[in-house]
């Protein structure tokens, strides 16, 4: 089994060899490591992408807007990802973002996962029919578990989720009430041990 350190190093070096700058190659190394930690096929997709990269007519997006559609064939997932991560503080306010036609979209995913950590919010991502919930870069929930190469996505939809409770207030109170059963009712004698006990004024 390859260690994560080997995965990071080889992904970084191969990315430089594929034409990316060292700074971007460093990002890719971390990203492929992340995909592999989350049991997603990072190495498989990166290898396939680099083998086909020269044949693909890729568009590099610089400034990301609410709705983004590639003029040529497809967006490069790396450049789109790097700029998404870099611009996340402004993109956050847009709430919903879409991309049409993205090459090797799984390589875009870890940038979004890291962006979720940067803004401290969950991000929901839909890649055609595959759904991913990116939880602050701590884990990824998904209905996609196949170990396969995804060459392109027609539509990517992203939604920044506000930090809200996943439960009803009533459910919280019910649980809180039960937790109170671990407390001890204080009689007068026990109250004397509390902070400020015995004071007759509030000076």
């Amino acid at each position: 089994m390859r260690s994560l350190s080997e995965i990071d190093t080889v992904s970084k070096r191969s990315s430089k060899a594929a034409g990316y700058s060292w700074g971007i190659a460093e990002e890719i190394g971390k990203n492929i490591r992340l995909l592999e930690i989350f049991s997603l096929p990072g190495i498989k997709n990166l290898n396939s992408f680099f083998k086909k990269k020269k044949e693909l007519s890729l568009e590099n997006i610089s400034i990301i807007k609410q709705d983004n559609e590639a003029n040529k064939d497809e967006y490069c997932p790396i450049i789109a990802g790097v700029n998404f991560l870099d611009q996340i503080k402004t993109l956050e306010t847009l709430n919903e973002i879409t991309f049409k036609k993205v090459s090797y979209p799984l390589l875009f995913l870890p940038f979004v996962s890291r962006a979720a950590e940067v803004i401290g919010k969950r991000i929901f991502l839909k890649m055609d029919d595959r759904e991913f919930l990116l939880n602050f870069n701590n884990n990824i929930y998904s209905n996609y578990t196949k170990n396969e190469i995804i060459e392109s996505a027609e539509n990517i939809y992203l939604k920044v989720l506000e930090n809200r409770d996943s439960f009803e207030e009533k459910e919280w109170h019910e649980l809180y009430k039960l937790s109170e059963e671990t407390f001890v009712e204080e009689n007068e004698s026990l109250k004397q041990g509390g902070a400020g006990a015995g004071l007759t004024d509030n000076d």
Partner: protein
Amino acid sequence: MNISLRDPNVVMKLSRLGSFHQSKLSFLRSFLKEFKDWDYKRDLFELNEHGYGTAVYSFKKKNRVYSLICFANELDENERSDRVIATKWDAAFTLFDGIPKKQDIERLKNEVPKQEFGRLSYKELTLSRANKSVRVFNHVVECLSEGKQPDNDLITSVGYLYRTTAVYGSGKFGLADRFRIKDREEIYGPFRLEMMLVYLVRQFTFDQVNHIAKSKNPKKAVNLDINICKSLGIGNSTGLGMAPFIVNHPTLLNNWISAREISLKKIREIKTISEKDKNLFLECLKKSIKNITSWNTESEYQINKIKSLLKDLNQFIVYLDNDFNFEQDYAFNELYLHVEKEYCEECIEYVVSMMMEPYDDITSPLIKEMSSEEEKYFNIPTERTVEDLKLILEKKYPDILTIDFTQDENNLNFWFISKNKEEPRLANRFDEVGAELEQPLAIARDIKKLYELLSVTKNSWTIAKFLSTNNELRHVVRRAFIVEKFPYSEIQDNTIGQKIMPIDMLRLKLSFFGALKFDPRSDKWLRICMFQGAPLPEQLKNYDEHWVYN
């Protein structure tokens, strides 16, 4: 009194970093301190009469066990090489996490001797190989088998029976990634498991030499005297592989240097020096001189450095004995100011190391801070502005911004990874091919380039906007924001100029390892000795922490 930390623009110059010496913060000393109360055991020793076979040594505490597995193999004379291009060695080693089962040993027997071409697993933590100093090893076997102890002069001049040529860890060749073990308290200090491997290998070399002598002449042979064993360490040949490490791990480098600088600051802030602390400082300093005088090297560069160090130290000792009053307030601060004013960089840093000796209470807590989670600081704060970044560069890289990289002498070399051994190398970009595959280690040049680009960019732009069209300098943008938080994370020198001495980068790292003597064989590789004079595993429970100077 509040003493400022030393200026990174002085401390992080290569000539200064290349003058660092071992100290209480050094990893081999902190390793011994951490593991002194662990149970040491030789679990397996199955060598044939020639010393070839398998051995296992372990350190155990409660449920945690670390086991060194040794494989000693026959090697033809013409196959023995210390160079990184070698493919066979006298012995190969791995540190196993736990107690290895028979199947583990069988699996590793096929993989460990292959080193870079073998595959290890998450159960293995470190990997190494070593070659005999044939001259010393054979001499010791001969003497012991005849019932005599070996020639002391020969032993002292070489200092080891085996020398390692590489020690790997942290996920290399399938070894366990650091994240699997980083929360173990006993390995909070850096390179703890690499140090453990080397330390246990040292014991294996004594056991092997005794075993061969005994097999050769069972009736007459004697064991190597324990005091001679103590005087032997493990040699190590180290090349350029170490140099990029300190550039590629900026926050780790910061934490090493920072521990040293904070120690110095706190020592300088001590108002009254106790008699006991003064005496310990003087004792260590005076006894340490013999380490310098026994330092053998043929390198003219190193010989000159040793000469000026010795001259300065002798003057310094005379000054201490005749002119210095330890009873004055803040005596160590006065002493430091004197040393900084009067002596060479080697001497300044030597004395800084010595000043730490009495102050366990200052150094011990800092040792735990010497590891780092580089990844925590990987993301670039892209909401910051071009103006912010420009100010950081002006403040943190003042001398680097004055270098003219259009001059060939300042842009002479390039760092690359060799295809043969995947090892870092340095070459002249105007004479050699391959400069287009340069590694991102020309930090000074790229920082200057970044500064020039920022100077023609609107101050109000965010870094996100700047990077959207300037990603070729992304690697140094990241570093600049790291150095803003970690002042000692960057070498404040040009690592590709004509005057670069790569050996300075190696000496820095090896001083933190705890190497005592540096023997440069060129400006690109050197030999050192580790654990020379250190207590043996059986003596660890009550050892003298100042063994370095005994």
